[in-house]
């Protein structure tokens, strides 16, 4: 799909919890096809200290309205300023970027595991994978109840499970401590995950041990986002690959993670 630089109109900026915001962007022309796992690179102009763009996964697409949304979690300076943008502001984005997840077969039973800002692509898969809800399990982890975002709009698309480190929502512990993960992992045909590296590595290890297809979406620091700077590399079995073009989604069998 052809990548473009576009000035989009911010039509909504909704605070979802203490540090997560949903930004809805409106294009002028028809949107290109956008696969779950793909991302956009956003320019943040309203801040003295930001130079490079910031990458954010696509959370959802409304092709009819020519709109798509992002889930922005405040991490540092750029994400913080971005969440102060208001409806009516223009934002320059480069998109669509990255490869996206391999969509499941119609008979697959899939487990989508999201942590932190990695929730966004998992929700988008649950919508686009085209599977009946009983074949889709979504397992979301966060530190505490107030760190989870409201996913009720997606809950008819699959079976949702939650963990919190303090037990304030769902089961207590990490996603890898959840009963469905501990007891039923081998029942899944495909596992997709996005979140903090330690979480993804733990999942990858178990998936590899169980011989389950597993794709992870990596987050690293990017300068360009479209494959020219070679700054975003991940070591793979065939050498350094760019996370922004060869990824962000990798099959764990191609990674050299020590798991």
């Amino acid at each position: 799909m052809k990548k473009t630089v576009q000035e989009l109109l911010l039509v909504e900026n909704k605070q979802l919890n203490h540090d997560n915001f949903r930004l809805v962007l409106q294009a002028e022309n028809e949107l290109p096809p956008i696969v779950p796992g793909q991302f956009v690179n956003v320019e943040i102009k309203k801040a003295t200290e930001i130079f490079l763009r910031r990458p954010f996964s696509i959370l959802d697409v409304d092709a009819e309205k020519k709109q798509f949304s992002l889930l922005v979690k405040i991490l540092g300076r750029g994400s913080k300023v971005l969440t102060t943008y208001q409806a009516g502001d223009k934002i320059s984005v480069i998109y669509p970027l990255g490869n996206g997840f391999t969509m499941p077969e119609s008979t697959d039973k899939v487990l989508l595991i999201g942590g932190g800002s990695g929730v966004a692509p998992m929700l988008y898969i649950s919508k686009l994978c085209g599977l009946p809800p009983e074949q889709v399990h979504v397992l979301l982890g966060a530190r505490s109840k107030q760190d989870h975002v409201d996913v009720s709009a997606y809950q008819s698309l699959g079976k949702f499970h939650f963990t919190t480190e303090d037990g304030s929502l769902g089961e207590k512990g990490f996603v890898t401590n959840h009963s469905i993960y501990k007891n039923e992992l081998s029942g899944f045909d495909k596992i997709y995950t996005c979140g903090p590296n330690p979480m993804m590595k733990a999942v990858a290890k178990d998936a590899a041990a169980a011989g389950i297809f597993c794709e992870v979406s990596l987050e690293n620091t990017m300068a360009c986002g479209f494959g020219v700077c070679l700054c975003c590399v991940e070591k793979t079995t065939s050498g350094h690959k760019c996370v922004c073009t060869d990824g962000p989604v990798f099959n764990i069998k191609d990674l050299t993670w020590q798991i």
Partner: protein
Amino acid sequence: MADLSVNIKDLLFKNPVLTASGTCGFGQEIADFVDLSKLGGVVMKGTTLKPREGNDYPRMAETPSGMLNAVGLQNKGVDNFIQNIYPTIKDVDSNFIVNVNGSTIEDYIALAEKINELDKIPAIELNISCPNVKEGGMAFGVSCASAQAVVKAVRAVYSKPMIVKLSPNVTNIAEIAKAVEDEGADSVSLVNTFLGMAVNAETRRPVLSTITGGLSGPAIKPIALRMVWQVAQAVKVPVVGMGGIMNATDAIEFLLAGATAVEVGTAIFIDPTIPLQIVDGINDYLERHNFSSVREIIGSLQM
């Protein structure tokens, strides 16, 4: 439409705006955004004799109005270039320039010999200023003697326009420019990146896997502009200026200071359409100021 063409020796550029090495891949990577045939030229990713995996991640740190990179010349080697990349670019109507890098003088010679055979590569940019490799690289570019040795050796085997890319990490860049001119460089391009460093205070570790990296972007523009001005006064060959160019005004500043052409690097990461915006912006400027050719403003800074 003003006449935007410039030349280095007998090589004509339809306009003075090139994309800088390491920031536009081999051109194809930005073809979604830019009609490459509208560019003055494309300086391709640094190429070495043998394939290189480059440095470990992390290779990048954002800095105020700039960035550090420590890519370390990741590339698949010159033979891969000749077999797989060259055939795809040779029909695009622009100047595709190979950026050549060696760990030894012999590397440079071997590379230049191979590139010399490629009909549709009209020039090379001899990179003696990469700060991100352990051997060779910048080491060649920081003394007159070593810079001259490389240039002399390559000149003996390479017959087309040779642009020598200088390091800004030196006391007197004009002196080095003159030294390479004396050995037959047809042009000098500057600046490559400044050696810099980033530290993560929380982890108490360097941000980059290589500790130091190369600083680029608007942060360095004032220094780069000063160096281009100094070099343009010191040498007779055309100067290709770069360092932090983000828009047409920046590019014009370099032209006024004496650059015959400019390269646009880091700006591409922010917006890959910037190089073409600069071409248009230079034309607008010339028309607004009643110049019929861009050549009229080169080095025309009034003191």
